[in-house]
């Protein structure tokens, strides 16, 4: 039984240009920490140098997005190795294999649980990636 009430705290990326919810005034935060878990908002292909969107080839978009996820995790005291579950949403399901090729570079061993699918994405993004990780 839980004996104390868990607190919930918002986490922020060290690079403020990746704080899309703040820069675009959207009603969400980059991530929430609860106990030993970190729940991140969906991240898109934001250029970490400009804060603008990188709508290049899908492989490049996935690489940018996962680099941003890595930055967010590390800003909050976690890391890619501690990612538990990932949602990969693509604009086009035919990009699955290409996404996978880049994805492997970020999780070289013991990859997290994952679900990948495609649906219409906002802002013309080719991918959006959301994850749950451990912080400890």
């Amino acid at each position: 039984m839980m004996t104390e009430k868990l607190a919930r705290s918002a986490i922020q990326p060290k690079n403020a240009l990746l704080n899309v919810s703040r820069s675009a005034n959207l009603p969400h935060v980059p991530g929430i920490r609860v106990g030993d878990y970190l729940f991140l908002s969906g991240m898109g292909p934001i250029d970490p140098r400009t804060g603008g969107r990188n709508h290049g080839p899908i492989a490049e978009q996935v690489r940018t997005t996962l680099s941003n996820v890595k930055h967010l995790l590390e800003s909050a005291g976690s890391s890619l190795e501690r990612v538990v579950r990932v949602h990969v949403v693509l604009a086009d399901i035919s990009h699955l294999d290409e996404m996978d090729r880049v994805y492997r570079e970020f999780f070289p061993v013991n990859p997290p649980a994952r679900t990948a699918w495609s649906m219409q994405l906002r802002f013309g993004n080719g991918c959006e990636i959301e994850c749950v990780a451990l912080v400890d």
Partner: protein
Amino acid sequence: MREIITAPLPGLDLRRHYGHYQSPAIRAGGLIFCSGMIAVDPQTGERRHGTLSSEAQVIFGNLKLLLESAGSSLDRLVQVHALIHDSAEYDVLNRVYRQYVANGPPARTVCGACLPDGARVLIECTALA
């Protein structure tokens, strides 16, 4: 601590059969996070193409095997994401779904999506370890 849960039967490892780069499930901090499951034969990994209803039944059978091998069960589900290829089939999903969560259904979201491997339905779940 984060622990990989391996597939109890070879067909349930979608990485092996479909190249999906993922672990079948991960146990972490009291919860089990499963990768999205599609209708595959649990022994051979072969796709069990069918109606949404028949695919959902295969998926629940597979999730039961996976969760039980990890010491959990369908009665311990916390949250489910069900993705269906045609949102008009929402009621069809519900009919099958009810049979498998009869002892108190978990939180759930259903949405229409394009799915890999020609799947009509994909179910992803989080359960208590």
